[in-house]
C-alpha cells in the first residue's frame, strides 16, 4: 500500500521546496487538471548567464493530491539554475523518474501537471518577448 507514498514523496508534500510566490516574477502561469481539480501556479524569475536565459528562481503554490504537489516541488528543485531552453525540452519521463514510483495512467496526469504549467508558462513568456 505504501509503495506510491514513499518517504521522499511524503517529505516533498509536507515540506515543499520552492513553495510560495515570487515578489517580481518574469512570468506566472497556472493550470488545473479538470479531472480531479488539482491546481498549480508557478512563478519564475529569469536570469542570464553566458548569453543564455536561465531559471534564476521559481516558486509554486497549489492544491491537490500528494503526487501533484510533491512532483511540482521536485521539479522546481530540479530546474532552478538551468537554462530555459533546456528546461522547456524536459522529457515527461524525467519527472516520473524524479518521483521514482510506479504510477497508473490516471495518476501520471497528476504527476505531470507541474511540468505542463512550467512548459506552457515558458512558451507564453517567449511569445510575449517576440
Amino acid at each position, binding site marked *: 500500500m*505504501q509503495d506510491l*507514498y514513499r518517504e521522499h514523496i511524503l517529505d516533498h508534500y509536507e515540506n515543499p521546496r520552492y513553495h510560495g510566490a515570487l515578489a517580481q516574477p518574469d512570468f506566472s502561469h497556472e493550470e488545473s487538471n479538470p479531472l480531479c481539480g488539482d491546481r498549480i501556479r508557478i512563478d519564475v524569475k529569469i536570469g542570464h548567464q553566458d548569453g543564455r536565459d536561465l531559471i534564476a528562481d521559481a516558486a509554486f503554490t497549489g492544491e491537490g493530491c500528494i503526487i501533484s504537489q510533491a512532483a511540482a516541488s521536485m521539479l522546481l528543485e530540479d530546474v532552478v539554475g538551468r537554462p530555459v531552453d533546456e528546461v522547456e525540452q524536459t522529457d515527461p519521463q524525467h519527472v516520473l523518474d524524479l518521483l521514482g514510483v510506479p504510477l497508473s495512467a490516471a495518476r501520471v496526469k497528476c504527476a505531470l501537471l507541474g511540468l505542463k504549467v512550467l512548459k506552457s508558462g515558458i512558451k507564453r513568456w517567449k511569445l510575449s518577448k517576440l
Partner: protein
Amino acid sequence: MTHDELDSARIRADFPILSQSLNGRPLVFLDSAASAQKPLHVLRAMEEVYRCAYANVHRGVYRLSELATERYDQARAKIARFIGAPDPACIVFTRNATEALNLLAYAYARHFLKPGDEVLITELEHHANFVPWQVLARERGITLKFIPISPEDGTLRLEALDELLTERTCLVSFAHVSNVLGTITDPVPLIQRAHQAGAKVIVDASQSVPHMPVNVAKMDCDFLVFSGHKMLGPTGIGVLYGKYDLLEAMPPFLTGGDMISAVDFDGPRWNDVPLKFEAGTPAFVEAIGLGAAVDYLSALGMPAVRQHEQALTAYALERLSEVPGVRIIGPTDPRIRGGVVTFTLDRIHPHDLATLLDAEGVAIRAGHHCAQPLHIRLGLSATARASFYIYNEAADVDALVEALYKAKQALRR
C-alpha cells in the same frame, strides 16, 4: 440494519466480475453511481441476439430482421412499463442520458424558446444537465437560472422558487437524485410549481430510475432521461421519455435513415414518434440488453432495491462518521439520500485516498464527479464517493472503513 428483502449473496453470484480479485484481494466495487456491473442475464440476452436473432431492425421482410425488430419493440415496451409511461411510443432510445438532454436542448429548447426566455436548473446538477443549457443560453440569449442548495444539508432551497419562477420560465430541469450529494428531491411539488408557472419540466433520473420506483405518470413530468449502463444494462443505450404530444411537436434531432417516412427530391417527411428521433441503425442489441436489465430489476422489485440501498447508506453513514477526520457531504438522513455517500478525509486528498483504497481492492470515485459548479458552491475542489447497488452488502462498507484506517496509517494522518 433494517429489514432487507434482497439476498445480496445470491445476487452477487449473477455478476461474474464481482468474483474477480483486484491486486490479490476480493473486489469491493463501490462506484455504481458512475456505472453499474452487469448480471449474466443481460450478457446472455445480448449474446443470444447476436447468435440467433441478429439482423438490422425495421429493414428486412425476412424472418431474422422481424425477430430482431420484435425484440427491440418488446424492450421499448418493457422500459415503458418499468417507468409507468402510458405508451411505448413515449420512449425514445438515445446513447445515454447526456444525449437525451442534448436532444432536448436542440430539438425542444432551440425550437420553442425565444431570446429572453428562462431555463431553470439547480446548483447540484451533473455537467450533462448544466453544459447543454449554458451553451443554449450563450447561443440564443436565453437566461439560465439556478435553484440554490443549502450547503449544510445538501437539499434544494425550494423557497427560492417564488423569485426564480417567472412568466418567462419555459423549462425547469433538475436531478431527481444528486450524483454527488445523494439528495433525493421530491419531484412532484417542484413539477407542480413549474407547471403552474407555465414551464415544461425535465427530470434527470440517471440516479433514480436504477435505484428506486419511478413513475412518470404519477410524477407528471414532461420529459425524463436516464442511462442504461447505470442500471445493469450495457453502455451506449439511454432513454428519453417524453409526453407524446410534445415529442410529436418537436422537430428531429439527428437526421438520416429510419427517422423518415418518405424522402423525395422536394425533401423528407418525418417518421412517427419515437422513430423520428432514432436516426440510423439504432443500438438495438443494447436496447434488448437494457430490457433484460429491467426484467432483472423488476423481479427483485424496485421498492426492495431502494430499501436495500437505504439500509446500506444508513450503515455507511454511521460507520464512516466513526472514522476520525471523515466529513460526510450532503444529507445525513438516509430517507432523503440515495445510495451515494460522499465524504472528505482530513488532510488526505481524495485522489490519494482512492489510490490507497484501490491497493486494498476497494474501488471508489474521487474528484468532482462531473459536478464542478456544485463543488465550487461547497467550497471543495474534490471529494471521495462510495456508491451502492443491489450487489453491495454491509461487508463492503466494513472493507471501506478498514481501508480508510489503513490509508490514514500509510500517510501518517
